[in-house]
C-alpha cells in the first residue's frame, strides 16, 4: 500500500521496539513482531473481565502513515466487535468499532474511518485527540484506556 520500502519500515519499527519490549514487560503485555509481514501483535488481559485481548498493528508504510490497529480474536486475524474492548477512544463506523485516534490509519476517511478532516500523510501534525508518535506510545495509550474499560463492546 505504501511506496516506502519494507526494509525502511522494518528498520524504523525495530528501533522503536527496543523500548517497546521494556514497556511491555512493565505493563504485562506480550509482543510479537512479524518482520516479514511488518505486523506487530500485542496481547494482555482485560483488567476487569480478565479476557485475553489481542491487538495487531499493520506497520506497512510506517512512519509515512500510522499503523492500522485492529483488535482481533486471539491467535487469529479474525475481526469483530466481540474482540474489541470498550475504550473511550472507540467510535462506531459503519457498524464496527474503530480506535479513533490520529495514530490509527483506520481512523482516516481515506481508509474507511470517520475522519475526513485528517490526512494520513500528515498524521504527525494532527492535534485532535490523543497524541502518540511512536509505536510504544500507542501501546501505552491503548493500555491506559484499557485500565478504565468496563468490559468488551459486546
Amino acid at each position, binding site marked *: 500500500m505504501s511506496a516506502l520500502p519494507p526494509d525502511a519500515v522494518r528498520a524504523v519499527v525495530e528501533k*522503536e521496539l527496543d523500548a517497546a519490549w521494556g514497556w511491555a514487560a512493565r505493563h504485562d503485555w506480550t509482543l510479537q513482531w512479524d518482520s516479514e509481514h511488518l505486523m506487530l501483535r500485542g496481547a494482555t488481559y482485560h483488567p476487569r473481565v480478565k479476557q485475553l485481548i489481542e491487538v495487531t498493528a499493520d506497520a506497512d508504510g510506517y512512519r509515512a502513515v500510522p499503523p492500522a490497529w485492529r483488535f482481533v480474536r486471539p491467535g487469529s486475524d479474525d475481526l469483530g466487535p466481540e474482540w474489541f474492548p470498550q475504550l473511550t*477512544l472507540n467510535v462506531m463506523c459503519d457498524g464496527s468499532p474503530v480506535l479513533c485516534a490520529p495514530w490509527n490509519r483506520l481512523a482516516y476517511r481515506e481508509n474507511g474511518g470517520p*475522519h475526513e478532516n485528517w490526512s494520513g500523510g500528515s498524521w504527525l501534525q494532527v492535534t485532535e485527540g490523543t*497524541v502518540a508518535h511512536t509505536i510504544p506510545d500507542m501501546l501505552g495509550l491503548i493500555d491506559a484506556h484499557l485500565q478504565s474499560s468496563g468490559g468488551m463492546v459486546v
Partner: protein
Amino acid sequence: METETETEKLLPVGLLDPSDPEYEDPGGEPDSHRRERIVLVVFAPKDIKPKRFRFPLSDTVGAAAQIAAQAFGYETGTPSFQIKDKPVLDRDLTLERAGLHSHEHVELVDAGGGV
C-alpha cells in the same frame, strides 16, 4: 512524624543528576517522614531508561508530567502519569492528592480525549 530536613529542602527540583543524594531509592517504608517534595521515577514508553525528577507535592500531576515530557523530548500533547494497572491520573490533582509517594514508578501517557 518527622518533617523534611533542612538538607532535603535545599535539593533542587526537576530532573535529577545521578549524583543527587536521592537519585537511588533508599528503600524501607515510603515517605516515613513528612515531605514537601518527592522523587518520581518516570518511564516513557518510547525510551528504554527512566528519568528521575524531584517535584513539590503541591505541583499538579499535569505540571509535573509536562516537565517530564519535555525532558523525554515530547513536544506536543497533554501528558499525565499512569501507575501500573491504574487509570491515567487526573492532571488537575496535586501530586499529594494523587497519592504519589517518593520513588514511585510512573509512566508518561497522553491524557487527550477521544475524537
